Structure formats: structure tokens, C-alpha cells
């Protein structure tokens, strides 16, 4: 009986397992293998490919590559700045939406726009908003008497470019987070809020000691998924800066962009292996961060 059930379970799972094997496990394993090919030429030998052996030189090549370190730096800044800020902002907006029902209808449209719109198209719209002379952001700064910033123009500083990229990244991630948090908040028993009122808790205390802890499983989920998302940053850069990847070539390079750069040069000897090696490194970084987050938050997540 037990065995039969097991078999049945495997049969039910089979389609998913097959799909995952073909599209997830195989590519990962394959990337590992390709990353240690020596002098890989994928198109040679009538498309069968040639290699001259196995090596870890590909990783060394990457570590010696200055562009890779620029990519790592940019990616980490995007991840470590945008994720906490966007989580905090979306929590804050979710609470506001809950407390001011009139805002709800209005905001539902606004915060859903990024969710349903193509990232690159939105990025191009943002690029215009960051324009030094005609852009919305500088216009707003102007109201406060702040000089126009060269966000993404050809001579923009790294800080300004990163600022623009972060603003865009945070904004485009808000929709999904707000959606998750508002629906999570709807599941929190209203009695806790009544009890907190009776217990004379201030609004901030309620947020900090009731809402956030009760949402903590969702906050963990969101922080892991958006950390993974941020480590894969690419679309946003292309949208904002074009394929030049920055106001100056490659100034906003990210790890995924680095991978693409070598993938698109696949005809050159060894390029696919460099790309694979970089992808593997990104994979390891992602896994490590997810594990750290999981362990650190296990102590703080309730239930």
C-alpha cells in the first residue's frame, strides 16, 4: 500500500520533475562543467564543440578581471541598499494603505503600474525623468532649491548613477511587496490591534511590536526573494542606461550583465566558460546569502 502510494506520488510529480530537470538542474550542472572547460569553442567541430582539457583558469581569469569587480561592487550595492529600503518603504506604505482606506483605490493603480509594465520600457521612462534639464526628479529638487543633478548624463558621477538606479530599482520592486504585505496584514486578527489600543500602544509601537513581528514570515520571504532578485539585477540597468551599461561604458555593470557580455561573445575561444564561471560565482553568492538570511532570521521570525 505504502509503496503503491509512493509510486503514485512520483507519477504525479513526474511532469514537474522532468521540467525542472530539463530547465533547472541540467543547466546548472552544465554551467558547472562548462566553467571548467579549457579553451572551449562551442561552434567548432561542426557544432559539437572542442575543448583542450579541464581547468580552473576560467575562474582566475574572472578574478583578475577589473570589470568583474566593478560588477560585484555594483550588484552588492544594489542588493544591500535597495532591499532593506524597499522592504521598509513597502511595509510603511502597506500600513498607510490600511489606515487610510480612501488612498487604497488610488494607490492600487499606482503601485501596480510597475508590476504590469515591461521593466525596460519603464526604465526608459525613468531615464527621461532623470534627465538633467527636463527630468521630473530635478524639477522636484528644484522646488526645494537644490541644484539639478546630473543623474545619468555622460559625465554623471558613480554616486548619481547608482542613486538613479536605486530609486528605479526600489520603485519597481514596491508593487509586489506591497501586495504581499497588505494581504498579509489582512490576515492579522483585528483584535491584536484593539488589544494594543487598550494597552496604550503608540502607532509606532504597534508597527514595530505587533505588525512587523506578525508579518515576519512574509518579511523573511520577501527579503530572500528580493535579495535574489537584486543579485540578478540587469533589466533595470539596460532600461535606464541602455546596453552601454552605465553613463560611462560599464560604469553600472552588474554580475548578470558581466555574464551576458561573455555569453554574447561566445564565438571567441573560452568566452562561454568565462560566462559560466561568473554565473557559478553568482549562484554561490546567492545561495550563501539566502542561507545566512535564513539562519539569522530564524531567531527573529515567529511561528
Amino acid at each position, binding site marked *: 500500500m505504502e509503496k503503491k502510494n509512493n509510486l503514485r506520488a512520483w507519477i504525479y510529480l513526474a511532469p514537474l520533475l522532468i521540467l525542472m530537470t530539463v530547465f533547472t538542474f541540467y543547466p546548472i550542472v552544465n554551467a558547472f562543467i562548462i566553467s571548467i572547460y579549457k579553451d572551449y569553442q562551442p561552434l567548432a567541430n561542426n557544432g559539437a564543440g572542442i575543448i583542450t582539457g579541464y581547468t580552473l583558469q576560467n575562474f582566475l581569469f574572472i578574478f583578475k578581471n577589473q570589470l568583474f569587480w566593478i560588477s560585484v561592487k555594483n550588484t552588492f550595492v544594489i542588493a544591500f541598499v535597495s532591499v532593506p529600503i524597499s522592504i521598509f518603504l513597502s511595509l510603511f506604505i502597506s500600513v498607510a494603505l490600511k489606515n487610510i482606506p480612501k488612498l487604497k483605490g488610488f494607490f492600487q493603480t499606482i503601485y501596480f503600474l510597475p508590476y504590469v509594465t515591461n521593466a525596460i520600457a519603464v526604465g526608459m521612462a525613468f531615464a527621461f525623468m532623470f534627465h538633467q534639464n527636463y527630468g521630473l526628479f530635478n524639477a522636484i529638487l528644484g522646488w526645494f532649491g537644490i541644484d539639478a543633478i546630473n543623474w545619468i548624463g555622460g559625465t554623471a558621477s558613480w554616486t548619481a548613477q547608482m542613486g538613479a538606479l536605486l530609486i528605479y530599482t526600489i520603485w519597481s520592486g514596491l508593487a509586489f511587496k506591497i501586495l504581499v504585505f497588505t494581504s498579509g496584514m489582512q490576515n492579522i486578527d483585528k*483584535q*491584536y490591534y*484593539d488589544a494594543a*489600543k*487598550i*494597552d*496604550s500602544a503608540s502607532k509606532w509601537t504597534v508597527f514595530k511590536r505587533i505588525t512587523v513581528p506578525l508579518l515576519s514570515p512574509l518579511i523573511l520571504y520577501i527579503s530572500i526573494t528580493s535579495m535574489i532578485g537584486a543579485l540578478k539585477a540587469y533589466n533595470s540597468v539596460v532600461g535606464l542606461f541602455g546596453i552601454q551599461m552605465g553613463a560611462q561604458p560599464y560604469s553600472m555593470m552588474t554580475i548578470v550583465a558581466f555574464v551576458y557580455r561573455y555569453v554574447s561573445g561566445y564565438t571567441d575561444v573560452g568566452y562561454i566558460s568565462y560566462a559560466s564561471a561568473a554565473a557559478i560565482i553568482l549562484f554561490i553568492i546567492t545561495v550563501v546569502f539566502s542561507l545566512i538570511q535564513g539562519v539569522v532570521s530564524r531567531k527573529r521570525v*515567529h511561528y
Partner: protein
Amino acid sequence: MEIKMQGLTKIFTSKNKKEVRAVDNVDLVIPSGKLIGLLGPSGCGKSTTLYLIAGLLRQNDGKIFFGEDEVTETPPEKRGIGLVFQNYALYPHMTVRENILFPLQNLKIEKQEAIQRTVEIAELVGLQEMLDRKPKELSGGQQQRVAIARALVKKPRVLLLDEPLSNLDARLRLQTREEIKRIQRETKITTVFVTHDQEEAMSISDEIVVMKDGVIQQMGEPQQVYDAPLNLFVARFLGNPQINVFDGEIKNKEVLIGGMKVGNTILPDQQVTVGIRPEGFAVDTEKKSPFKFEIDMVETIGRDTTLIIEVESGEGGILDKKTFKAIVDVEHRINPGDMVHFKVKPGKLHLFDLSGSIL
């Protein structure tokens, strides 16, 4: 702290625009230091009344005073009340200690004192061993005591309890009921205890308030309300088994049920509704009373014998059921089929007009 309500009204408007007067023009004074049982059937507005006192709901009309202070417009966090919710609403992510400390921290009580008070209150409710547990690691009764501790620790002016025993099993219910009474006596905090269980209310309260459809029906000491109900609703609501209700009439200063005389009155001739509690009957051993029935069933428990009498429609003018019950002393040794002559004990004959008000 005395609680005074003046013309308090709360109207809920449902989606189809129908209005529910959950609390309807309530005038009520809850004396300082007393434990009051707020009693009534489901949906009569008990919780709503409690939440109005707490400030969690906003009244449509009327005023609320705590002592001399009017608190009608005071937000709940400033009213200085303790509230125990029906399902406790303990913060699930906090330990018992943190749950109890929470109101003190919000009131910016100095840390050392807050810890001191937490320990003291935990002792009062018998939780000192469990301070580091999470609510879900506690039994229902223990959770309930945490909720009481959390409500009491800030030394509220008023303690409000919303059906706090409804989730407990029968034994724990009885035990916790005594506990609440003891804690209330020790702390002397004015307490309102909501329940729809009349026995619970009668046993725990200094005074009970009976409510129906948002309107206060009667207030008084439990025994007094039981003995002298102001209307048929109160008479029926209190007491188990329920009061027996008959169609009757007054003729020449005599009270008649189905033509049989059950007592005397000074009231003028009229149709009346007669209420007699099961324990209001006495057996007329001389068999002189005309108020007689054939007994259909006999149940004896301990010293009491319950006689169950089936009445054919019309006969005896029984009003709401086809049977009525009389509880008499086991001494009488009555068997099914016996014809028993009843007298009504003095003060046990309740006469209501046809609209249900006491005469």
C-alpha cells in the same frame, strides 16, 4: 471608579442599509468597586456596550463618565481600562512576560517597577512559573489568566471582560469563575463581566444587568432580579429549568389558570400572563387546592423531585410549551399517574400584563 452611561446609543448600518440599534439609549450606572454581570442572549449588544465603554467603538449618541470625568471623546489608550477579549487576543509572538509588560512599557513605567509589577501580578493570577512561555504553550485557562494579568497590571480604573470563560471546559470554567471573583475582590476594581450564561452571571456578580435588543431590561442583585423580574423576558431568561408561563385571568381578586384558582391579588379583573418558577410550587397534602394535574413523569435527583406535567392544548392554559415542570421535595413520594394538588408558594406568583410587563 463608577461608570455612568447616559442615553448611550450605537447604530450599525449593514451593507443593505439596514440599521441595527445594537445599543439603544442605555442609561446605566455601574457602582464603584463592584463586579457587574452584563447578561443577555446572543446579539443583544453586550460586546458592543463593552467596546463603547472601552472606546474601541464610537457611539452615535450619548455620554460616558468614569467617576467625574467624561470620557465620551477620550480615545481607548487614554481611558485607563483593562479589557479581556473573548478569545484573549494575547500577542502570539511575545512571551507571557512580554505580554504583561507591554502595557507598562507603553505607559513609560520605569523599568524596575514594571518588572516588579509583572512578577506581582503573575503571582496574583498564579502564573509565576510560566512567564517565559509563549501563549500557544499554555492551556485555555492559563491563557485566560494571562489576559487578565495583562489587563490588570496597569492598574486600570475599570476592568472589562468579554465572555472570558466561553472557551473553557465546564470544570475550568467553574474554577476560573471563582478566580475572577477572588481577583476582583482583592483588587476592588470596578468590573463589567459579559456573559450569555445566566448561571455564570448569577454566581459571580454583585449585580446583574439583563439586556435585550440593545435595551436594558433590569438591573439589580442577582437574587432580587430572579425573585422579582420586571418583565416576562427577564423572568424567562433567568432560572434553569425555566419559569413556567400560563395564560390566566384575574376575576374578583382571584388569579385563575384554566379556571383553577392559584392565588389572590388586589388587581382589577383582566387577562394576565402568569409565571410560576418550578420551585414555586408546593404540594397541597390536604388535596384541597383546585389547582391540580395528573403527573406524567417523575425525575428524582438528590433531595428534589421534578414533576413533569403534559398539558393538552387548552387545558390548564399552558402558554409556551406543552409541558411544565414543578420541583418539590422528594418526601412526597409522587409517582407517574398520581393526581397532585398544587399551591403556589408566597411571592412566587408573577403576574404580567399581556405585553409582558410586571403588574
